[in-house]
């Protein structure tokens, strides 16, 4: 069985017939065919993100936090989270891709394809991620940001898959700890589809 990560490049690592079977299923039937079960429903997501937002509002009161989201998966979580942060804050985006083909989940060093608009020096930075998996990408981004001397730098991750971790990542704000299952929806894609689903679902074994 292929173990897939959430990385945007993973289709290139799929064997051809799995990919065409998946694409066909998506086109014919939408997500229902692919969905094994809903792992986290919309209400659970909303409630938890509201809690995280309240916690961040409290912790960053008077600090003008800078939320940084890594494209593309983290955007849905970021937009929901920022609406629950009731203190003034800024948002920024970064895009990273790795050298080589389809290697974002591996140890390939990420390349910054879109950098921040603002200087983070002296700022209170929160890196907002959809999922922390092996931890390599976020580790690289954290180390990069650290060289720019922010006043503080924390991680807020909606999902944490600790069993997949290969490198330690300090997660200050964690939405949900999830088992090592292939998930999609709420920003997370399955072969680039289904980022728009309002819940997080688990992919059926046969499509993994």
């Amino acid at each position, binding site marked *: 069985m292929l173990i897939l990560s959430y990385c945007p490049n993973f289709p290139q690592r799929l064997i051809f017939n799995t990919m065409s079977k998946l694409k066909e299923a998506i086109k014919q039937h939408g997500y229902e065919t692919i969905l094994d079960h809903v792992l986290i429903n919309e209400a659970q997501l909303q409630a938890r993100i509201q809690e995280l937002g309240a916690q961040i509002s409290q912790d960053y009161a008077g600090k003008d936090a800078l939320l940084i989201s890594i494209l593309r998966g983290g955007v849905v979580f970021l937009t929901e989270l920022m*609406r629950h942060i009731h203190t003034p804050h800024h*948002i920024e985006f970064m895009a990273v891709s790795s050298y080589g083909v389809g290697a974002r989940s591996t140890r390939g060093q990420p390349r910054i394809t879109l950098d921040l608009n603002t200087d983070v020096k002296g700022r209170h930075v929160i890196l907002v991620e959809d999922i922390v998996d092996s931890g390599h990408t976020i580790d690289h981004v954290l180390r990069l940001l650290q060289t720019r001397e922010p006043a503080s730098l924390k991680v807020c991750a909606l999902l944490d898959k600790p069993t997949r971790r290969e490198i330690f990542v300090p997660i200050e704000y964690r939405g949900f700890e999830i088992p090592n299952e292939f998930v999609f929806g709420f920003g997370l894609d399955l072969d680039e*589809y289904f980022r728009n689903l309002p819940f997080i679902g688990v992919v059926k074994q046969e499509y993994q």
Partner: protein
Amino acid sequence: MGIHAFDPTRTVDHGITRVLFTQEEIETRVAELAAQISADYAGQDLLLVCILRGGVIFLADLMRHLTLPCNLDFMAVASYESGARSTNHSPRILLDTREDILGRNVLLIEDIVDSGYTFDHLIKLLKTREPASLKVCSLLSKPTRREVPVQIDYLGFEIPDEYVCGYGIDADELYRNLPFIASVK
């Protein structure tokens, strides 16, 4: 969350004057747009291309209402001239799409169409890549500010020539998180 939710000192600084569209009005309109888009593209694949940064909240809400198989991509552009709200020249591409748009149905998602220059240039650029179709979806439009015509296929609201913030749109980089759209001095 309501108007009480933002820092009162900042509110004074930035001069938020009145609410133009409430959270409920926006939610209703976004759901309507998504239903329209879902119907128009039924049976087809759709690639949403969101222009950073203002469009992200609109995008995140809109896409969750879509019943289509859709892909998501982003572009970031900056104008050559400084000045937060006016764009008189062609934009510089800071981040291009990851996806190849050849033969795809592309829907550009933007928070606001103002003079139209940025959009006009973006549309021209993307058309050279031969998408199957290219349409524009904007949350807001300021028709009185238009200097070049832009066809907006899906429009949330028309607004007068006022500075606005909230629902992804910033006032000096703040207030993107407001659930409503307000007028700023």
